[in-house]
């Protein structure tokens, strides 16, 4: 019994120690957003800011840079991306899972092979393509290139494949078209898989960084990540303000994670994050 208690103590000790290290950068970012200049530059560091209601850094960050617009842009891009990718993925996965057409499995196998190709390799051509299409500096350019995702289609097709065929035939006998069957039967059954895809997609669109830096140069269309980046690149910019802006920028993802942890963790355990 005593050995068990000691073991338990060590388990908790190490878990808490590790958790503190993992969470520290978050605590440090959030707490430093409330620090005064003296607290920020003190050594030894100021562990707890004297005034948690000191919103000075937030106010000044939002005055200096139009973070409201950046936020709005990120929200629009994330929502549109989740919705459009969701629809295209559902249609594609259904075709590959249920409908018959020549070379279906061969085509799908080829697509899976394409999944190996890193986006960084495609980006060279894609940048030229959107430039030629005159799509740079707009919000659609942040959404459209990512609508057809082999990875999400693969996850959803796998799920669709597990839904028994008997459901399909009985629905067809009842006179339901493929279209109706997809939306009335398959999509509701596949809801957990769909939610996972949408969550992973929301996370990767919100955090997307490299592509936006290439195709957005105008202030009006900057996303949050891009806003943060330009904010930190400005000469003589105040780090406290950057941390305040960063704190606000990660809040939506933290909230999302707190509410949908199980879905996200399960999704990651099954397929991993994109990229």
């Amino acid at each position: 019994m005593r050995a068990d208690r000691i073991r338990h103590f060590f388990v908790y000790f190490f878990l808490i120690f590790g958790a503190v290290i993992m969470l520290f950068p978050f605590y440090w970012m959030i707490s430093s957003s409330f620090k005064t200049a003296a607290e920020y530059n003190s050594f030894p560091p100021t562990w707890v800011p004297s005034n948690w209601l000191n919103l000075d850094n937030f106010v000044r960050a939002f005055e200096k840079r139009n973070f409201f617009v950046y936020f709005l842009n990120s929200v629009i891009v994330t929502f549109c991306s989740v919705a459009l990718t969701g629809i295209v993925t559902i249609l594609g996965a259904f075709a590959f899972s249920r409908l018959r057409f020549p070379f279906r499995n061969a085509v799908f196998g080829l697509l899976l092979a394409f999944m190996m190709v890193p986006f960084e390799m495609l980006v060279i051509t894609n940048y030229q393509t959107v430039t030629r299409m005159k799509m740079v500096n707009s919000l659609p350019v942040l959404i459209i290139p990512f609508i057809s995702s082999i990875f999400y289609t693969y996850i959803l097709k796998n799920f669709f494949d597990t839904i028994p065929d008997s459901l399909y035939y009985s629905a067809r006998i009842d006179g339901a078209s493929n279209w109706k069957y997809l939306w009335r039967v398959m999509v509701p059954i596949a809801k957990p898989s769909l939610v996972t895809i949408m969550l992973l997609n929301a996370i990767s669109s919100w955090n997307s960084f490299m592509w936006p830096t290439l195709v957005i140069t105008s202030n009006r269309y900057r996303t949050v990540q891009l806003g943060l980046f330009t904010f930190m690149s400005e000469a003589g910019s105040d780090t406290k303000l950057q941390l305040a802006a960063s704190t606000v920028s990660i809040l939506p993802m933290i909230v999302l994670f707190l509410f949908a942890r199980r879905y996200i963790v399960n999704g990651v355990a099954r397929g991993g994050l994109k990229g």
Partner: protein
Amino acid sequence: MADVKTAKKKSRDEQGNYIFNRRFEPFGYLIPFALGLIVFTIYPIVNVVIMAFKEKYRLSGRYDGFGLYNFEYVLANDDFRNALSNTFLYVFTVVPIATVLAILIANLLNQKIRGMAIFQTAYFLPMVTSSIAVGLSWRYIFNTQVGVLNWILSVFGINAVDWLGASGARAPWNIVAVIIFGIWNMLPFTIILLLSGLQNIDPMYYTAARVDGAGSRMMFFRITVPLLAPTIFLTMIINMISAFKVYNEIIPFWSGRPGAMNNVYTMVYFIKEQFYSKDRLGFAAAAAIILFLIIFAFTMLQRFVQRRFRY
């Protein structure tokens, strides 16, 4: 009579429609997906290969045939060599260290403990937050004068380290800082995969071992590690593939520059700089193909292992 005729005609029409539907309906579902795929995945794959092998005489600006010039140039380029060695150093430090730590943490998390939700949140949170935002916090932690890390070192009597600064011959601490940040970033994903691997181990093995009087350390090394080995290996390869694409992790520390002395190039950074800032598409394409070949090799290794272990 007329009625019958029209009825017959109608049914034939419907049948025709039906056949038409059967044959072409799948493509209706596939068109949006295929369109995006052709424009933004398939065409770029073809194009990048063409660009990489196209030779361009710099002086005349004319394209002149195909060859290996772009690859020769890139492989001889100092920045690319810097990128290659940094990327390999990053991959072969971050991945093993993160894996070892993740095995330990996953084991602790795999027990019946209170506050599981809190621990999971703590360990998995970095997965959903952007490297740019959190990297700023790390930049402050690594600060030479007022950073937390140097304060901790000072408690142990160690002199301040110029983590992100330009001191030393080639600012060797720069890449170390990126590696530390990278490990922290990689842990959540690694822990999740290993934890699900652990949960797939049949508890019977442990019961049997306990009956035979095995201690917990023995069980860890004789049961957990061997049974988890395929998952560990798989996780390492997935992580290596993503670590070869390291880019976002270096952005916040030097506001977008690759290190304090341009010493922390990574392969993706090099590719981006070549095609975007320097407008040298051929070199970028050649570098991208080299990156792809490395990733391809690791993916093949992954496939092989998966098949071997029937995973």
